[in-house]
């Protein structure tokens, strides 16, 4: 079964029951230098494995880019 979640402002269909860490792996994102907000709450990196995504969840996945002042 598939569910719909919002990642960085866009809707995506993913497998039901996926954990946050599996999703990041599926997307090819190294979790070392990213941070994730799950339904507006920051997720501790130790909890990436145990965070299971549900229908209509919202994720913000951020990293660092070039920037200055």
């Amino acid at each position, binding site marked *: 079964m598939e569910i719909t979640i919002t990642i960085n402002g866009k809707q995506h269909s993913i497998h039901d029951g996926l954990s946050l860490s599996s999703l990041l792996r599926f997307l090819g994102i190294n979790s070392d*230098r*990213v941070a994730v907000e799950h339904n507006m709450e920051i997720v501790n990196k130790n909890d990436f494995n145990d965070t299971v995504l549900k229908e209509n969840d919202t994720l913000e*996945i951020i*990293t*660092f*880019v*070039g*920037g*200055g*002042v």
Partner: protein
Amino acid sequence: MNDILKIAGREIRSRLWVGTGKYKDFAETKKAIEASGAHVVTVAVRRVNITDRSKEGLFDYIDPEKYIILPNTAGCYTAKDAIRTAGLARAAGVSDMVKLEVIGDEKTLMPDNEALLEAAKVLVKEGFIVLPYTNDDPIMAKKLQDAGCHAIMPLAAPIGSGLGIRNPYNIRIILESVSVPVIVDAGVGTASDAAIAMELGCHAILMNTAIACAKDPVKMAYAMKMAVDAGRLAYLAGRIPKKLYASASSPLEGMIE
């Protein structure tokens, strides 16, 4: 020479801090940062591009083990957004420092000091090392220090303007008003601007555009390093007072007649 900058008890090995934006590519960013000798490097916090993972990332070029990474909250227009961005930056696990920016206006990119102070209070309470980007306003600098900020980062001129140190007198008053380090943030255009800020007694300078948008960023990075070092040394050496009339350097005795 034992002249080490400390912020929140941490030793900072350079007085020139640099941004990582506006460069042609990551290779140039890396070369310029190396030439600048900067120990502190500021970065922005943005969404991961999840559809195109082929692109290389900043940290493929800038080793976060080698530098002190200073995430900024650039682009935030409210205290809430700045607090949220700072929280995400810390959660990413490379730094608990934040260059706190709450911008008030798109055209000037001047800070919204009211919102800045509000965000600073929250972040200090949450245990961040808070370095706020603010106006060259001594009263605001004092309020930010009283809120627990670990340094004050007054602008010298608008971000990216290259106008130099517009109000050296205010910067001097800020230096007298607070005991935390004062780091000029934004407005420097060329090496002499950097030297002037350091000669005033500023503890460090953060710059991006002046280096990244110079015709030769790597050369300019090196020029800025030398200017910051020279300015600091001149400040420590203590300049002579300015006088209206001449004062001969050669002895007046023993002249031929």
